[in-house]
């Protein structure tokens, strides 16, 4: 075997932490990681948040984010230990030999400069190509990555192309200087499943055609499996398992890897629909000051104690439907019946009883809780507000609720900042439960969480549903979640319900084109899935 392109030995990385009321100190976030990458190969780095994936990825560029320090080990690129050289050596490396694709292209492009200027910047300033050569190369890459109108897309500004297209532009940016190694840091995580699949296919093809080596970082094992040759599983800055992709997916050795592979193993018996607790009839809605309807004639029913999942990609009107039901956006047309009464269309004129029985849980638990209130205040306020509970009685009920969400009463005086992502979402669930609601609207409640944590939240929601007989309107873009918990499903596309019914009906053929696209776009944990789907699907995502 020839010398590896990238060789990392005993890499140790420290970060400075600033705990409240204590002196800043260093903690180890990567404890001695070793790996090698041959020319033209792809290594997938996978793990949950905080596993050190991005930190390790960036070390291939000799870079540590603010407060992060590479304290030990060696990083060899093309036979040089890049940690030994000075900043001038690193400057020659970055953007020429090693390039980087960030997670959020929208946040990484400079909105004031045209795409072409940014794509060719590194190649030109590193002296690799002349400006005109670089532009010609960029146009070729645009075409290869499947971007529409490759000759002119470079003269647009970043906000003039869609998220999926921008992510592909960023891939072109990284490939333009003909680097030896590209670090992809969760390039498809911020995209819809239907868009993700196109970007993924484009990246995979570009890697193959240019013969570049890549580090592919993701928290989604199914995605990594499609593009990588080898996979390294990381947990808390340590390597758990490292091997060829085939072995990791099909015969994982470590418990942690097995858990990652078998995630979403929840089974939920589908219940038959009964007289609905909530029925929204012919809802048409538009936002103030706009001239087009975001929802067209949407009708859904939710049975008591059951779950209706609303699925669709971003912009399909899922969250708008929730805003109409909660009364934050009065509809232009249509009405909502809830528990035998007709709900007033706007929230301020609803009765306290209506508000109490209809609760909501948000996607981002950190911003759904007031950072200056303790867990006790957050959960206690609905008790006080709806039931007038005070003192010891309230305290007792708060503890009961904390028990229900599987957290101890030691959490009552904690602030949200002192909780993990999963715990935060649990507290939000407890706050909704405190009102003893009949229906809870769950808006993408698991999409900001790591898969194993999300799994725990879904199990909790199902248990609570059995115990409290509460109905869920479950908004999500993730079909795996839907399969796990729904009783009935509404598929939304461009503001319309395109398919609606019991889970078993909606998920069995024959499919309409959109449902087929949505279903087939969910990454599956088997090799060759990507090629299969691209070859057989009937329509493309609206994001293209």
């Amino acid at each position: 075997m020839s010398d590896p392109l990238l060789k990392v030995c005993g890499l140790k990385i420290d970060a400075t932490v600033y705990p409240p009321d204590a002196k800043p100190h260093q903690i180890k976030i990567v404890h001695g990681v070793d790996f090698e990458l041959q020319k033209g190969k792809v290594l997938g780095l996978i793990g949950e948040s905080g596993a050190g994936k991005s930190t390790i990825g960036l070390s291939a560029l000799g870079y540590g984010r603010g407060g992060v320090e590479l304290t030990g080990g060696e990083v060899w690129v093309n036979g040089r230990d890049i940690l030994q050289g000075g900043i001038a050596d690193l400057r020659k490396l970055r953007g020429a030999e090693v390039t980087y694709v960030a997670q959020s292209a929208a946040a990484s492009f400079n909105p004031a400069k045209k795409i072409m200027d940014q794509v060719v910047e590194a190649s030109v300033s590193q002296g690799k190509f002349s400006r005109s050569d670089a532009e010609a190369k960029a146009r070729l890459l645009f075409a290869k990555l499947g971007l529409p109108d490759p000759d002119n897309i470079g003269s647009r500004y970043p906000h003039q192309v869609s998220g999926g297209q921008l992510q592909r532009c960023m891939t072109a940016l990284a490939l333009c200087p003909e680097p030896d190694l590209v670090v992809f840091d969760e390039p498809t995580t911020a995209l819809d499943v239907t868009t993700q699949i196109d970007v993924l296919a484009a990246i995979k093809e570009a890697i193959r055609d240019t013969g570049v080596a890549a580090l592919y970082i993701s928290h989604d094992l199914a995605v990594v499996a499609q593009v990588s040759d080898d996979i390294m599983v990381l947990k808390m800055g340590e390597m758990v398992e490292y091997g060829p992709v085939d072995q990791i997916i099909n015969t994982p050795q470590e418990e942690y890897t097995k858990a990652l592979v078998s995630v979403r193993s929840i089974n939920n018996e589908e219940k038959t629909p009964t007289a609905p607790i909530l029925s929204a009839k012919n809802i048409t809605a538009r936002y103030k000051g706009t001239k087009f309807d975001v929802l067209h004639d949407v009708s859904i029913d939710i049975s008591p104690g059951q779950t209706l999942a609303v699925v669709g990609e971003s912009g399909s009107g899922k969250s708008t439907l929730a805003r109409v039901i909660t009364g934050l956006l009065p509809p232009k047309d249509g009405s909502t019946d809830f528990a035998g009464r007709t709900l007033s269309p706007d929230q301020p004129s609803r009765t306290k009883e209506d508000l109490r029985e209809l609760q909501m849980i948000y996607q981002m638990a950190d911003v759904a809780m007031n950072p200056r209130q303790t867990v006790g205040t957050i959960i206690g306020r609905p008790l006080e507000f709806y039931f007038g509970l005070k003192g010891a009685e309230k305290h007792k009920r708060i503890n009961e609720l904390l028990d229900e969400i599987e957290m101890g009463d030691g959490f009552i005086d904690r602030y949200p900042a002192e909780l993990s992502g999963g715990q935060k979402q649990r507290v939000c669930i407890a706050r909704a439960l405190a009102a003893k609601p009949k229906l809870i609207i769950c808006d993408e409640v698991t999409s900001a969480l790591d898969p194993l944590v999300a799994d725990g939240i879904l199990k909790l929601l199902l248990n609570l549903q059995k115990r409290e007989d509460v109905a869920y309107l479950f908004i999500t873009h993730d079909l795996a979640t839907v399969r796990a918990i729904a009783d009935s499903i509404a598929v939304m596309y461009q503001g319309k319900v395109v398919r609606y019914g019991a889970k078993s009906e909606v998920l069995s053929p024959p499919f309409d084109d959109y449902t087929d696209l949505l279903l087939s776009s969910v990454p599956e944990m088997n090799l060759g899935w990507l090629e299969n789907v691209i070859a057989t699907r009937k329509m493309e995502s609206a994001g293209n």
Partner: protein
Amino acid sequence: MFKNIPISALIGLFFTGLYFFIAIFAPWIAPYGMAEAVGDVWEPSSAKHWLGTDSIGRDLLSRMIYGGRTTIFIATAATILSFTLGSCLGLLAAVMGGWVDQAISRFVDLIMSIPTLIFALVVLSVMPVTIPVLILVMGLLDSTRVYRLSRAVAVDINVMDYVEAATLRGEGRGWIIFREILPNALSPLVAEMGLRFIFAVLFVSTLSFLGLGVQPPGADWGGIVKENKDGIVYGIPAALVPAFAIATLAISVNLVADWILNRTTSLKGGRG
């Protein structure tokens, strides 16, 4: 919590505390009465008069102590007034939105379009110059700045999910403003308060220097500069003493304000 305070903030806290202490206990600390003529004109400093005497033979140290009391009192009262008024209106405008927001904001724009000093001079030249009037004029003029800041901060917080959650719960406007928004808007407001206080000190000193602030024989730092400014020509440093006091108070309050700002706006809790 005092373990993590940087040295600059400690210095600031010490001097700010010292000035406030002297201001509060002025009658017990000052060696002579405020308006008592106890020596010759512009005596140099001696054991009897630590800072010498002023343009008509009063003890300068005593004048400085009483002057500091007046200056700091006016500045503090004006700051409190401007913050109460400005932040209440600012939060209300942010939460209500619509025409309420428009009406208050455009009115504030109108007032801010007139230079503050000129506005104050015009008002004070037609009103009797007493301490309550001074406080009122300064507080009202400064509240426009506070309004701008608190509205900007509150508009950001108002769109957070936790405010929406409170709205959906059916909470009233009072709870939303005082329990959800205010606690989260407090840190930038407190930091701004330090800066506003110093601007108030400078403002009242400016007014007194121009003769429209504290009236003789009452003492305040701006007034002492005015009374002794002619001495500078003869090499008498009496006018520089209050200037020095204003400068040190400004610097120390700013050191404290910087620290608070740093602590509360930085993602690392200001310890980085």
